[in-house]
């Protein structure tokens, strides 16, 4: 990449005026602060990128200051994911680049795992080490025993490597630790999963129901933007949450539900909508299967019944159901994102799907639209070998409806077990801090200790890197090309990520790493292009564009092949289910031996003196990925535990005090956490933001600040349908005496 400053012609958005203005302001000169001067000088050309701070992948432009240092990132106006406005994490992405604690050189472990004893190595050494081990493992156990955990763009290349070797075991923790149950539930109901970003027509909805979504604290950029548009248009928001979330603060109805009882409320809503005949009759008639079964099933699940379970007034249940029906079909019962709560999550999301189906929102304006994506041709390569064994063949009866590899599944299948005759031997971990991602840290460590090889690819020295055999320092998204983004949206789009700077220190992109390993492992044919730019250019030329064009525009929008954003009136839609219809009664679930329609299950309640541990997001962070980011830790550098004033009074707690938390299994938080006494949380729960309490000292900005909820999630409620790990079944109590412990501040 050229390092000379180039004045690339900027697109028509007032660039000429901006340039002239820059010169003009320079003439004014003396009165400006350094900040102002630097900003105007920053217009030395811009580079297109798409953000890597979270999975939303908003496209944007990177600007550098007059010294060539990355200064500012803004959104690309053409991008449907962000509409020209990045969220705070994306805006703060510059911090990821400038973070002084970044990994700099490859590291190879010198002593026992976990002793944090590493030596710096050259890339050649590191690749040779890894390749040797993989060859041995493949020969002894088979390449299927190598697994990849990924939550980053680099994962694409490691995936190619693994599949080239013959392993299908590519796990994204975002499935079984996050959205898995809803993918399975919606797949079972509508025949398709939701993907990212979800096809929610929020900007045109008249009623948005958030049950288990804290949009606004959860910064899904496009959805927060559209929620704001919806508010402008007078849409109603109904929020169901035991905590007074930001969204609850903007809602017409906030239902302060008792935790773990959401399914009862959903069933009661279904009951009201069916019994008062508020459902979309023609839609249900034409498109759904199993209505009569459903009607019978929810016959007795009245609002009065639900009231006893959820503590939500039956009048409110009826009113909100009518509100939804009134708005239908422009109504969205939001499927949520992180839905692995109590182990019956697939069934709960089935209820959400059923409710949406009854209201007729699927495929309608203001409900769920039909996305279109774009298929970019892959560069020619030999066919992937068929794996000799997969987790499906080894565990045919487990999690029958899961359709991808489960991260926790791989983890469990790495822990030695006499009842199994095989286990995973090697992990490659890319862009996910498994120690904080997988609940039950003890189990994760057991698995790690049983590995023959652990390779961690990351930009920061996250906790997981401390356990690795080899740490490969990845350069940030601002320093590399990556696969073109072709996510599904209202219109198909292609977005380019190009480097705005050379990789820092001795860091490298994943493409390079995977390719070098492929060379040594004899599968280089699967990486036909030596330089990624050439691969991208080839791919783009196949579809009538080019790398040069994409560098200029950043995002290319293509027309939909069919004008079918929503169903036509009376359209004959075929759903990819067994019956070809929307299955209110799920034949797939029935076939796998599960309840075809959701039933309410009672979940464990906190014992006396304990409070349910609830966790969530803050809009300025994306958990570990931003924990050490200087710009974002400026906004929030520790979490607090929210305690209801009644509880605080009982325990003598006040805001600003630090306490330890202990859970029902006696697990104590590693670091003390600050108390926030607030009316926003129910008296039977506490709440904290996930992503703090880091134990890795190399993360100098966030080490020891706040507490980690993952620390305290020792009881995992596994969903038998698809293996999702329910994490909300843990209860904590307080330890107020810190015994002279110093608080990191």
């Amino acid at each position, binding site marked *: 990449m050229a390092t000379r400053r180039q004045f690339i012609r900027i697109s028509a958005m007032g660039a000429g005026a901006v340039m002239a203005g820059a010169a003009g302001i320079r003439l004014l000169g003396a*009165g400006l602060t350094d900040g102002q001067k*630097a900003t105007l000088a920053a217009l030395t050309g811009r580079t297109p990128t798409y953000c890597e701070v979270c999975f939303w992948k908003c496209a944007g432009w990177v600007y550098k200051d007059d010294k060539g240092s990355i200064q500012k990132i803004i959104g690309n106006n053409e991008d449907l994911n962000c509409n020209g*406005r990045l969220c705070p994490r994306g805006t703060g992405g510059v911090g990821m680049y400038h973070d002084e604690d970044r990994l700099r050189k490859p590291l190879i472990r010198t002593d026992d795992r976990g002793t944090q004893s590493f030596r710096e190595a050259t890339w050649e050494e590191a690749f040779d080490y890894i390749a040797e081990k993989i060859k041995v493992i493949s020969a002894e156990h088979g390449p299927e025993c190598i697994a990849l955990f990924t939550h980053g763009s680099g994962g694409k290349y490691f995936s190619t490597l693994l599949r080239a070797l013959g392993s299908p075991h590519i796990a994204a923790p975002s499935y079984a630790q996050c959205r898995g149950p809803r993918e399975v539930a919606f797949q079972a109901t509508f025949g398709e999963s939701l993907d990212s970003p979800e096809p929610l027509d929020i900007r045109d909805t008249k009623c948005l129901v958030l049950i288990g979504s804290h949009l606004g604290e959860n910064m899904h950029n496009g959805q*927060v933007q559209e929620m704001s548009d919806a*508010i402008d248009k007078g849409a109603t928001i109904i929020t169901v949450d035991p905590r007074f979330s930001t969204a609850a603060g903007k809602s017409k109805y906030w239902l302060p539900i008792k935790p773990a009882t959401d399914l009862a409320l959903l069933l009661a809503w279904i009951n009201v909508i069916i019994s008062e005949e508020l459902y979309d009759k023609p839609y249900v008639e034409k498109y759904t299967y199993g209505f009569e079964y459903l009607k019978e099933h929810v016959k007795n699940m009245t609002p009065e019944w639900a009231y006893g379970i959820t503590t939500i007034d039956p009048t409110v249940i009826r009113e909100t159901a009518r509100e939804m029906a009134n708005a239908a079909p422009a109504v969205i019962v939001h499927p949520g994102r992180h839905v692995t709560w109590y182990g019956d999550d697939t069934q709960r999301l089935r209820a959400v799907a059923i409710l949406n189906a009854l209201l007729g929102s699927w495929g309608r304006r203001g409900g769920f639209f039909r996305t279109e994506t774009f298929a970019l041709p892959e560069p020619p390569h030999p066919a992937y070998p068929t794996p000799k064994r997969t987790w499906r063949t080894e565990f045919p009866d487990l999690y029958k409806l899961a359709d991808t590899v489960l991260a926790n599944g791989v983890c469990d299948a790495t822990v030695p077990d006499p009842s199994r005759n095989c286990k995973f031997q090697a992990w490659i971990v890319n862009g996910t801090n498994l120690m904080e991602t997988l609940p039950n840290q003890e189990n994760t460590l057991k698995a790690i200790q049983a590995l023959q090889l652990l390779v961690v690819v990351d930009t920061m020295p996250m906790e997981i890197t401390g356990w690795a055999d080899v740490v490969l320092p990845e350069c940030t998204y601002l320093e590399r090309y990556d696969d073109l983004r072709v996510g599904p949206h209202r219109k198909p789009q292609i977005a380019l990520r190009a480097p705005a700077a050379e990789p820092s220190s001795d860091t490298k992109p994943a493409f390079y790493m995977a390719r070098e390993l492929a060379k040594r492992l004899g599968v280089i044919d699967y990486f036909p292009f030596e330089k990624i730019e050439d691969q991208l250019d080839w791919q783009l030329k196949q579809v009538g564009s080019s790398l040069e064009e994409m560098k200029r525009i950043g995002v290319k929008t293509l027309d939909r092949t069919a004008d079918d954003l929503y169903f036509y009136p009376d359209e004959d839609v075929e759903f990819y289910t067994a019956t070809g219809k929307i299955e209110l009664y799920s034949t797939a679930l029935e076939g796998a031996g599960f309840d075809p329609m959701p039933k309410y299950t009672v979940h464990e309640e906190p014992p006396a003196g304990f409070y349910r541990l609830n966790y969530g997001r803050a809009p300025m962070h994306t958990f570990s990925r931003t924990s050490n980011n200087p710009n974002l830790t400026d906004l929030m550098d520790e979490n607090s535990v929210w305690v209801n004033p009644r509880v605080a009074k009982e325990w003598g707690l006040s805001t600003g005090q630090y306490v330890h938390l202990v859970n029902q299994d006696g697990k104590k938080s590693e670091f003390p956490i600050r108390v926030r006494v607030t*009316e*926003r949380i129910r008296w039977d729960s506490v709440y904290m933001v996930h992503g703090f309490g880091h134990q890795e000292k190399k993360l100098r900005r966030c080490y020891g600040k706040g507490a980690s909820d993952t620390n305290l999630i020792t009881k995992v409620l596994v969903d038998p349908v698809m293996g999702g790990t329910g994490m909300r079944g843990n209860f904590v109590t307080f330890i107020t005496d810190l015994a002279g412990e110093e608080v990191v501040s």
Partner: protein
Amino acid sequence: MRYAMAVDTKKCVGCSDCVVACQTENNVPIGFCRDWVVEVMDGTYPQLEIELRSERCNHCGNAPCVRCCPTGASHIVDGGIVLVKPNKCIGCGACIASCPYDARYPHPKGYVDKCTFCIHRVKEGMKPACVAVCPTKCMYFGDLDDPNSDVSVILRKRKSKTLIPEAGTQPQLYFLI
């Protein structure tokens, strides 16, 4: 010409994008901020109300900081924007003490710094960085003397308030309520 800003507290989600955008736009040093977000909670569970506000220098019409500055470093330019000339500032801190909104801070380089309504962008016809980035589009900026500007239009449509108007400062940052 009288510049002003309005923030819709009903749409603000407290994400603090405005704070980071300002930081990267204006090279605000890490550890400092020119704007910030305030959460006000009222009530008893479950009868609760929340207000979220993005705050910054109010570019007051009767600015105590400009009044008290002994060197004239704090001054007002066309449009009512209050600025600081770094080379005139002696770092005495009087303006910091005189601001009832705590909007100013001592820059590590010695002079006093604060929100400038991104005057360098406004002059080019752009909006301040915070307004331009806000994902909920809850921020408005413009010329109050122009009845068709964004801010004039929204202030006519919606009820609004300013912070501690009784302090006599004539703040020009409006909160839509």
